[in-house]
């Protein structure tokens, strides 16, 4: 086993997800299957190979620091699940 049930609970917390008991069972099995398959990568000698992070080699994309039009607060807030004035409202953060 690559991942125990406790590992799955830990990763779920990092990912901000909750699982029911029977889901934890299923996910532990399926994630282990997938991770075992990934072991095939250990067959490849990658000593000295630079990791590839982009499909196309690009340098930094700079632009002039000009003020352009933006979407606007009101329009952005139309999708807010909960709002107050010009802000997004969320449940209590601190005691």
């Amino acid at each position, binding site marked *: 086993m690559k991942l125990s049930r406790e590992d799955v609970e830990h990763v779920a917390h990092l990912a901000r997800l909750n699982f029911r008991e029977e889901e934890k069972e299923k996910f532990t099995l399926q994630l282990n299957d997938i991770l075992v398959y990934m072991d095939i990568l250990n067959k490849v000698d990658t000593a000295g190979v630079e990791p590839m992070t982009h499909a196309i080699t690009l340098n930094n994309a700079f632009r002039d620091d000009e003020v352009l039009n933006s979407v606007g607060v009101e329009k952005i807030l139309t999708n807010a699940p909960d709002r107050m004035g010009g802000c997004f409202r*969320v449940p209590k953060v601190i005691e």
Partner: protein
Amino acid sequence: MELSTLTIHELQRMLREGETTSVAITESVFKRIEAVEDKVHSYITLTEDLAFQQAEQADRNMQSGRGGPLTGIPIALKDIVCTEGTRTTCGSHILENFIPPYDSTVVRKFREAGAVFPGKTNMDEFAMGSSTETSYFGITRNPWDLSKIPGGSSGGSASAVAADECIAAIGSDTGGSIRQPAALCGVVGMKPTYGRVSRYGLIAFASSLDQIGPFSKDVEDCAIMMNAIAGYDPKDSTSVPAEVPDYTRFLSKGIEDWTVGVPKEYFIEGIDPEVLDAVKRAMQVVEDAGAKIIEISLPHSEYCVAVYYVIAPSEASSNLARYDGVRYGFRSREGRDLMEMYKMSRSAGFGDEVKRRIMIGTHSLSSGYYDAYYKKASQVRALLRRDFDEAFRQCDAIIAPVTPTPAFGIGEKMDDPLQMYLCDIFTISCNLAGIPGISVPCGYTKSGLPVGVQFLTGHFEEGKLLQIAAAYERHAEIERRRPEI
């Protein structure tokens, strides 16, 4: 002949010569949708009112001589590209009511070109899937056999084109999500080079792999669509400021004296014999068209699925962190504090496949595992790309299967994620290397399911890709059947 069955270039000629109108084309498309949509379910959202407004405007523009190649043409949009004022769900409960406040660049370009939008097409949730079965909004069925999947993740765009519920469509391809459903539904589908088409307003899945591309009824239409969407966009810093040629110029050039490579690693055990036969016949056609076929090697092919299913979920776990119930999307009302609200919104808002990939990605990137998974996969990815660089020193283009099998049955692979992932074995490398690829219909199985053949070329060689695809299409003379729905 029903207008909905025609191609962009056929309809454009008719529009120019005053033989039809965009309103008539749009009526024909909606008549077809009315007739078959209950069975196929290509669309999540239909936008009939918008479509007719656009069609009327297009007709006015045509009359005053302001028409372009896409003016008045109904183009379906995968529900992953943001459309200002029209909800964009990405196939997910978490975005069920999301109405984008802006247009994606491709949508803006289509609007400016005078295209007509019949609706937003069904897809696997957040484009994670190979069958369109993970959509929150129900499954899409393959127009050629309603008991089969249409492929995925852009299954709704592929089925809409195949079933004549639009003239052409837009999809996105992260590991095969355009080419695989195009093959399984018998239409043309292209994934352009990474950076060729702006991703601005494309809901992100795996940002180093995602690319927008067209679905069409033939190769010429694919070139017309590419002319409309390709090009640098300052709003996507990964789009590339390279010159965009007129892609239609490549269509009639032919492939005499070309060398076309066949990767020996792609002819593996487990590939369906009817698919294998069809692809071998396609190789013969390419040879008859004047090209020389040679065997090439892509030695790291066997690792592509493992590389992809580390890199794509890792990027996805980061991209999908934004769905937290704060600014837009679904929010659970049950959480008592912020942490509970995050967890409950995400757990209720995402489906199982999305959660599985977020979990794989989070684990791969977590402390102590990063080197073993993400870094290792990125190194093997570099080797995969090197394989292609080496191959394209020996040949102009590569020919390969698109999928190991024809369309499979609905529900068949839903309980075995790994089996589902292996469907992408021939399409994934192209995304990892960033090169363009196209799927072109190459025949039918005995039971009448379509089969596709894939061509690949080097970075930014979409012109050459369309050149070989068009030459193949011309010489193969594949019988043009229509699905009976």
